[in-house]
């Protein structure tokens, strides 16, 4: 049985990095005594796959991983047993059974993600920015220079900003997140800052990931649905 777990990562847990979060869940699954499947060999590992790594310092309301169980059990029980062994800041918010197969792993499915970005206290731009944001988005293209170890290349990120709007004190955005077009909210924000004539500040943004989506659309018409909706409670 393959299940997809959705969890939150808030508060001080944002300082626990991606690999350590994986280790955290590996141990949690053992504490919950779930019948998880292992690979063979001298040092077997759990068969699990995380959807999209979350950077240190970013909180999330919608993280995902898939895991393989050797026997079928009610998804509600899995959720309950995991939640009994979570720490403050991590809550399992849904468990759904999903179809087997490599093409449908959480990681392969990731197409887009929602973020909410606000400015840390004292890190707001010195010029008015709220009214400029829609103008920024109205540009035909938003060209950024991406530096890699070997080269620099220019990319138009406008097509990868699927949605963006002012929300509360900050900005809500839905960004492309497949491996080919993965776009970081920091990159969008830094580009916006430069566009309004501000030098981007270090540690200026508070970022929260809110959802991760698969693309269920056909014929190049994207239809983003949260990863959990590809599965069902059993």
């Amino acid at each position, binding site marked *: 049985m393959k299940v997809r777990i959705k969890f939150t990562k808030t508060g001080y847990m944002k300082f*626990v990095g991606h690999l*350590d979060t994986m280790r*955290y869940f*590996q141990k949690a*699954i053992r504490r919950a005594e779930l019948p998880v499947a292992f690979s063979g060999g001298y*040092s077997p590992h759990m068969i699990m796959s995380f959807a999209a790594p979350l950077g240190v*310092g970013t909180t999330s309301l919608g993280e995902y991983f898939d895991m393989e169980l050797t026997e079928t059990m009610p998804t509600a029980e899995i959720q309950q047993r995991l939640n009994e*062994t979570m*720490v403050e*800041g991590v809550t399992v918010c849904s468990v759904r059974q999903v179809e087997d197969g490599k093409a449908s792993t959480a990681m392969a499915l990731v197409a887009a993600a929602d973020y909410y970005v606000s400015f840390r206290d004292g890190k707001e731009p010195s010029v008015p920015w709220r009214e400029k944001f829609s103008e920024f988005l109205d540009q035909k293209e938003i060209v950024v220079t991406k530096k890699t170890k070997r080269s620099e290349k220019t990319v138009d990120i406008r097509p990868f900003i699927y949605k963006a709007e002012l929300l509360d004190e900050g900005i809500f955005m839905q960004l492309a997140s497949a491996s080919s077009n993965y776009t970081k909210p920091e990159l969008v924000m830094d580009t916006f800052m430069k566009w309004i004539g501000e030098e981007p500040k270090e540690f200026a943004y508070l970022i929260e990931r809110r959802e991760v989506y698969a693309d269920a659309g056909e014929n190049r018409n994207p239809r983003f649905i949260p990863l959990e909706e590809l599965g069902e409670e059993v």
Partner: protein
Amino acid sequence: MRKLALNDEIMLKIDKAARYIGGEVNSVMKDKNKVDLRFCMAFPDVYEIGMSNLGMAILYDSFNKREDVWCERLFSPWTDLDQLMREQHIPLFALESQDPVKDFDMLGITLGYEMCYTNVLQLLDLSGIPLKAEERGMDFPIVIGGGACAYNPEPLAPFFDLFYIGEGEISYNALFDAYIGNKKAGGSKADFLKKAAQVPGIYVPSFYDVTYKEDGTIASFIPNTPEAPEKVEKQLIVDMEKDYNALEAPVVPFIKATQDRVTLEIQRGCIRGCRFCQAGMIYRPTRERDVEDLKEAARIMLKNTGHEEISLSSLSSSDYSQLKELVTFLIDEFRAKAVNISLPSLRIDAFALDVMSKVQDVKKSSLTFAPEAGSQRLRDVINKGLTEEDILHGAGEAFEGGWNRVKLYFMLGLPTETEEDMKGIAHLAEKIAERYYEIPKDRRNGKVQINVSTSFFVPKPFTPFQWAPMYREEEFIEKAKIVKNEIRSQLNQKSIRYNWHEPDVTVLEGFLARGDRRSADVILKAYEKGALYDAWSENFHYEIWKEAFAETGMDIEFYTLRERNTDEILPWDFIDAGVTKEFLIREWKQAKAETVTPNCRQRCSGCGARKYEGGVCFEGKN
């Protein structure tokens, strides 16, 4: 949700910020207003190292079982955070509550190794606690030292209010009661210290006066307060079934600790009596835990932590009488659940090879031998009962079973060592290589690889070698070169790799291990000049220490090079560690006579530990 002591900007700047957040699975939260005593338990090294310390885990659990006590944890901030805390005047905080250490009633610091002493001062300094005990009133935490290095607490004496000698499970309750009673009665710090001095195992350094002779040795060491006992007796658990605090749910770190696994303590003490080994002397008598208790403990700790590995902890694990049953149980019970069994270094015999082949990939694992000395003569001097025949036989069987990697550990600079003993290290490695190539080629698993490591010997208090001289750095290097050249001149030199430890750290460790109260000045000076994390080779700067010696006018060689007379008053003589001075003197003489002493199960050597009325001294005599 708990509020962190450090702001996001700092947290995002520093390496491994998760070291400082607390809140791990099984960490203990309490209401600080509902306890009478807040204890901050510190390990003066970085989180990943400190969280691997079993003693600290046991005491954390044990203290928190008291409803009126909340014990929290503290580790050394890494150098990046250290700098930021100094620049921004951020006080050091405990992990659980994130409250300043200064607000605690007690600060207990584990002293596991000498090279952590500057980190002890860092903890006090960053907490805003005056470094010298005499400068601290009741408004600062009572600073307590414990652990292996507390068996010679004198180099740290001025910085601590008291030391706890021995195993922590025994006397802390009495100490806490004394503190809480004194606090409720509105007593002063001096009142409390007087009460503390009467608790078994507690040493209050300020209650003792030391005078020195003209030659620099100690003339007298006497209590200056009626409450302070002449001898401080080490504390230990006698009944390992009734009084052992079996861990059930140790804290599970978010980041990978050095020992990222369940540690199962199978016994305390060692029957062997190696004359260089401090642990083998101060933890006497050997006390085994019941094998059924251990099976249960393994089950419950794996369940409560979710760790994917379990290891056994003890000195000389092969001497645990129920080892076979325990290891077989662990393999049968947990391998199927994909739990790794991490074996301690076992005496290589048929049993060891059998279990090793079950839990490790033979092609990737190696055999470990610790002959410690290169010749039989010197092994007799140090009372290491491992013969060349044992090693060649064990290695031979392993080679037949498919192994082809061997690790060998030795010490250089042992008492009475000659050039022949040093060359013996090379010769032994050569014989092991030859043994490998006796196996027909078609049955061999490629080439043999022998790794020889030498460390330099450091004499430790409460060992028969506590009177022995050490060497200078250049002499140590000379010894290592003799070994290296001898290895290089042999037929199988290409199969043998050799590496040796840096001698300067060793010499300093020797100074700190057998130092006295006057040594504290050097530690303080070195700390003030920037020494920190001396146990980490990349952070160790010997020149700082050399300057500290020069500026304090202390002579390191008085402490390291001198062979002491057995009638000299040693700085740690006021401690009763169980082994008597008569026994140690006898062993020192036996060493010089190259005579071995049988182990505790073969024959009692009258070391003194029998007075505790438990353990190996009474095995089968209930």
